[in-house]
């Protein structure tokens, strides 16, 4: 059993229930609350609308924006449709000999891909063309040499430190974004993409490249190419919402995508190839699970180097119980903790895992339903909290 997990009621087939003895197919994902949360002997099948304590008298346009169209970060064919200017090595070599200026114009073109530049490294070196390159190309080639030499080569950069930091970020993005269309070109080329991704995610906390990385991860998995460094870099973003990019693959027509998505998402209770529910249901389940638990997920750092099915995220139950989101990928909450909070946590700490999960799940559910009722519930002794939670949920997690 995973530590700190909150199994959500899941549309299991009955044949799989034995693996999760505490979970049963529910009629609803959450049982609707009674009118009074204190009346543990009554249960009413009514739902109450969301509770807002303040009347909103401002102009709605100050808070809402309709953008008309919505784009998606998910694309199964992104890598094959990128349009870049690709220079062929032989053609460029011929051009260097016949019209050097035109050769330099082409290689310094804004639309050139990193992959083209990568393929022309030898020609550039043999013909001493480095100084004629623009700053982007120079920096990209120096980064490439650095990566492939594992940092053993030292270079002098013709930029201030501050300018170099900023240009390095931009150029690393260019390397990954234009190079991804030619992923598989060679092992060295792909290694540069992997490290560029790792730098962007770990050092620059760049999240816009995560969709590209997800595409590459699954494309490589289909073709049996090495992707573990890329998977590691992807999770090092410590961005729970990025799990949606993996969950999308649960609905893929390619069985390898589905199996790999199952492996990467196996830490979410209920996600696995053994379940007989549809791909759409599994996807919806992941989305709901993220909505519930996203603010309380803590990155563990587990990776494919460490075990077969890593659990990159765990739910911090104490944060969920107090409904206080975690902050900055740490196992600590952003909001201050009052003396009452510490009292609650002290009593909470004495519970077994089953009751901790029960209270955390119920607490969040009640908080979202009605924060005032939630505050009242928290005032009860913890034994009474458990009694109420069990009455509302049937004791089920």
């Amino acid at each position: 059993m995973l530590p700190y997990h909150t199994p959500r009621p899941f549309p299991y087939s009955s044949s799989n229930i034995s693996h999760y003895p505490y979970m049963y197919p529910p009629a609803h994902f959450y049982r609707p609350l009674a009118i009074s949360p204190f009346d543990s002997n009554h249960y009413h099948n009514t739902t109450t609308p969301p509770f807002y304590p303040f009347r909103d008298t401002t102009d709605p346009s100050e808070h809402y924006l309709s953008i008309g169209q919505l784009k998606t970060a998910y694309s199964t064919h992104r890598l094959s449709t990128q349009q870049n200017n690709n220079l062929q090595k032989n053609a460029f070599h011929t051009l260097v000999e016949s019209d050097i200026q035109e050769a330099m114009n082409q290689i310094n073109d804004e639309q050139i891909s990193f992959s083209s530049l990568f393929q022309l490294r030898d020609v550039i070196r043999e013909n001493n063309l480095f100084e004629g390159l623009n700053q982007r190309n120079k920096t990209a080639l120096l980064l490439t040499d650095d990566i492939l030499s594992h940092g053993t080569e030292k270079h002098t950069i013709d930029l201030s430190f501050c300018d170099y930091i900023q240009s390095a970020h931009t150029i690393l993005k260019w390397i990954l974004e234009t190079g991804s269309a030619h992923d598989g070109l060679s092992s060295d080329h792909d290694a540069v993409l992997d490290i560029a991704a790792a730098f962007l995610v770990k050092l620059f906390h760049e999240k816009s490249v995560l969709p590209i990385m997800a595409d590459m991860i699954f494309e490589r998995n289909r073709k049996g190419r090495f992707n573990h460094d890329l998977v590691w870099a992807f999770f090092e973003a410590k961005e729970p919402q990025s799990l949606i990019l993996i969950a999308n693959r649960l609905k893929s027509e390619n069985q390898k995508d589905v199996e790999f998505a199952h492996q990467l998402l196996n830490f979410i209770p209920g996600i696995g190839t053994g379940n007989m529910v549809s791909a759409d249901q599994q996807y919806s389940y992941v989305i709901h699970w993220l909505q519930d638990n996203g603010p309380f997920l803590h990155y563990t750092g587990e990776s494919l180097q460490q075990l077969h099915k890593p659990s990159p995220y765990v739910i911090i139950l104490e944060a969920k119980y107090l409904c206080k989101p975690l902050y900055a990928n740490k196992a600590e909450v952003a909001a201050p903790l009052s003396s009452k909070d510490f009292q609650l946590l002290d009593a909470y700490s004495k519970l077994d895992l089953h009751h901790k999960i029960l209270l955390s799940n119920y607490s969040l559910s009640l908080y979202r339903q009605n924060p005032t009722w939630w505050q009242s519930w928290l005032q009860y002794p913890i034994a009474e909290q458990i009694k109420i939670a069990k009455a509302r949920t049937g004791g089920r997690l």
Partner: protein
Amino acid sequence: MTVFIGNRILPSAFIDQYPPNSTERRVIEILSSSNHTYRYESVNHLKVELDLRANIVKASRELFYSGIGFRTFRNSVCNPSYWIRNEDGGFTSRDDVPPSEAIEDIYKNGRRYGTECATAIIILYFKAVLNVFPHDVFNQLFSKIHLMNWQQLDSNLAIAYFRNPTDYLPGDCRYVKNPDVNPLTPEWQGENAIDLGNGLYYGHGIGIKTVNEIIAALNRNRRPGATESAYLMDSVNRLGFSRLASLYQRLVRT
């Protein structure tokens, strides 16, 4: 706490059959003094586990001295007479050679091989099983071997991961994590290391060292300006001793 064999307590004299300072003796001492109650189906099940753990420790040392090199998956190498190198950098045993010989070749010709630390663990696990099981049974159980860190694991190895176990035993595979690793060298993100039972660990690429020495090696491979040290995690990967013991009972001790 107590070690149970079926419904009976393990006799205290059981330990006497193992030499002092042996791996088997160390394991029994830990099990017997644990807060956790351990239960074995039969005394033979316990003996097979002890035998396997002792051979994991032995195979670790032998792999260290085999000359096998540390290489990232992109640059991995193997002896093509016995193994096929796959596009992802892993190895698959050739169909025309017995898997037992393919594993033995890694130990005989270690210098012809280079891979990462997790794959080395799988290699020594196979070697440990090969040392305990007759070769013909081994080849029957593992007709095709894939070596690619913790992926494509054979179900008969039954490797499982445990977080926060009650005890750590010789033959367990621990993990030292390096959270501030330099992105330039992701292979240094951590080190899989076999507990040798005497305060030393075998980690491929680092060698036979104490935990602090492994941590120091990983710390030398962090990003410039790193502040967070590598650390030993409270978790283990373990060979499926119970499964292998059952297979041994069924296929060898008939």
